[in-house]
């Protein structure tokens, strides 16, 4: 089992890692020949939110080499926090705090140190004074066995009623933050096929609806397995479809605002809401983080 890569876009990786870290302590990473998958499958039961992401190797790494007995795939579990810490010291300095120059060279490789498997991040950079520095972070990992891997299953969802392009997540996050005292831990998300998105909260003291209009409803490639491929045309464009989700889960998802450019939400009425957070522009298809937020059924 061999793995080695240069991290070319450290900042992107760092932001992804940040978004994941807020969600779950440990995450699973699957490296394949062409993609990196980060999976948070909610084993700790934290609000039921799951992340399944796929990021093209080329949008993060260069000089990528992978080799394993299992179809050249490597499955590992590691602490998201430790990975974020490693990437933090490699990420480009933000503002005054960074002690190093931006052109760090970061190499990540799979290493076995005294029978402990680690993912070793080696960072070569220069200080502001121009002296070379070498930083190494060894993040302890656990190589997953094949039977564990086979148990990982992406959640099954019905065909969503609505696809809608979300407003900038940072803005959404402020509104959700402000709604927190007005919501009894549950927030309703509703959308229709004519570009309207609503967030609703209710307590004994007040009922609040915040709505965005004029958003776009992207046409998604239909899953060929669904029986009625044209049922979205049959839907009334003004009918709102909604789910109730836990405020905490929604806030965890909104932590991904650091990495997001475009986010598409898919609402499966009374089942779940799926958010596709695109990394980089959609056209480039550099990668996507898929968040599954389960609905709270009243």
């Amino acid at each position, binding site marked *: 089992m061999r793995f080695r890569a240069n991290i070319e876009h450290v900042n992107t990786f760092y932001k992804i890692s940040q978004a994941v870290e807020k969600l779950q302590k440990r995450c699973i990473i699957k490296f394949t020949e062409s993609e990196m998958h980060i999976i948070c499958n909610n084993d700790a039961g934290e609000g039921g939110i799951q992340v399944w992401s796929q990021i093209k190797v080329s949008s993060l790494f260069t000089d990528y080499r992978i080799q394993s007995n299992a179809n050249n795939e490597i499955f590992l579990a590691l602490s998201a926090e430790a990975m974020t810490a490693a990437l933090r010291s490699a990420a480009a300095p933000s503002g005054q705090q960074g002690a190093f120059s931006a052109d760090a060279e970061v190499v990540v490789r799979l290493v076995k140190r005294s029978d402990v498997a680690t993912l070793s991040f080696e960072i070569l950079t220069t200080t502001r004074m121009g002296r070379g520095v070498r930083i190494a972070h060894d993040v302890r990992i656990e190589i997953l066995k094949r039977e564990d891997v086979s148990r990982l299953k992406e959640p099954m969802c019905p065909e969503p009623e609505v696809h809608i392009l979300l407003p900038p997540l940072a803005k959404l996050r402020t509104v959700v*933050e*402000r709604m927190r005292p*007005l919501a009894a831990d549950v927030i309703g998300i509703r959308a229709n096929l004519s570009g309207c998105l609503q967030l609703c909260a209710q307590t*004994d*003291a*007040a009922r*609040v609806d915040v709505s965005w209009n004029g958003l776009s409803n992207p046409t998604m490639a239909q899953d060929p397995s669904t029986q009625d491929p044209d049922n979205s045309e049959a839907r009334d464009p003004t009918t709102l479809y909604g789910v109730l989700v836990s405020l905490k889960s929604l806030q965890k998802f909104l932590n991904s605002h650091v990495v997001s450019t475009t986010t598409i939400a898919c609402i499966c009425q009374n089942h779940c809401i799926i958010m596709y957070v695109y990394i980089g522009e959609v056209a480039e298809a550099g990668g996507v983080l898929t968040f599954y937020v389960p609905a709270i059924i009243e």
Partner: protein
Amino acid sequence: MSDSDDGEVDKVLIASVHDVKYVMSLLRGVQFGSRATVRATSGGLSVTVEEARTLLATAFIFKDIFDEYSYHPEVVPASQGLSSQPSSQPQEEGEPTAFEVPLNTLIECLSVLGNIGGSTSSSKHRLWHTGNSDQEGEQEEGSSNRANSTRNRGPANGRIDQYFAGDKGTGMRLSYVGAGYPLTLLMAEEASGPTATCEVTTFEAEPMLELDFLESPTVLKIILKSSWLRDALSELDPTCEKLTIIGNPPPPPGRASRASGPPRLRLQAVGTFGSTEMDYPSDKEVLETCECEQQVRFSYLFKHIVRASRALQNSTKTSLRINEEGMLSLQLISPTARPRHDGGNTSGFIEFRCLPLDEDP
């Protein structure tokens, strides 16, 4: 209230404002206690919070502060059929329409779109210390309007925000159908932004504490800059229990007595760790006016007086009065600095009335 057109006419209260910041700052000034009583009259709104049946804080939001304000008092149902009664009923100003709202919730609703920071006070704070605040306020306002000549012109509180976040006032429209209905708030930012609809539960108003200041003659009347009082209150140890306000008559003419005589106004606080005294000299710079015939000395619970701190932050001038019974009235003027050509009363104010502690003489 059968359909929406009729509903608009039937509503007891409709008020809208293009930037909710000023209204917010007045409401925040009385933000203690869970419920507030809102009274609507044809002249505007008053929002009152009571504490321990001793302290009454009221924010007066006059109708000129709103861009649109309409008030149709509820007609007593009995007078429905008769032709002589309903004509006389709405004309005269009867009992104001009163209802209670959870004030914290109301304020949270008003800030749900997120760009109303509570941080504007720091910028104002600096302004006032330089002295002639009115002039500076106008200058600032003028330049900010030039900087972004967009449609919305925020009131003074938003000046700094305007520089950083562009012109992003939150417009608000408030309506109240009548007893038993929620208070509906509609809010929007710029055209592309979200809109918010909030329905705040209202409650039947409970009989309010009556504190009539003019019941007995006024014995002390002082007008001073709010910052002088605010700074004094913030200096005091928060564990203090009692605050005594002492007013003295002007010293007899003569140079020697002027220097050594008692201060016109003294604040005395007694707490567990000692006592603090603050003297305000008889100087036009400090006390704009001070009317006091003979020594006045009344004590209040410090925790009640300190409730006024937040309101003091957003105000320029304070009128401090005490009547013979010792009731304290603090009136805090908060200027809008919003240009108005029709000369309406655009400055809202907040009034605190507080009963004194009973003391052995």
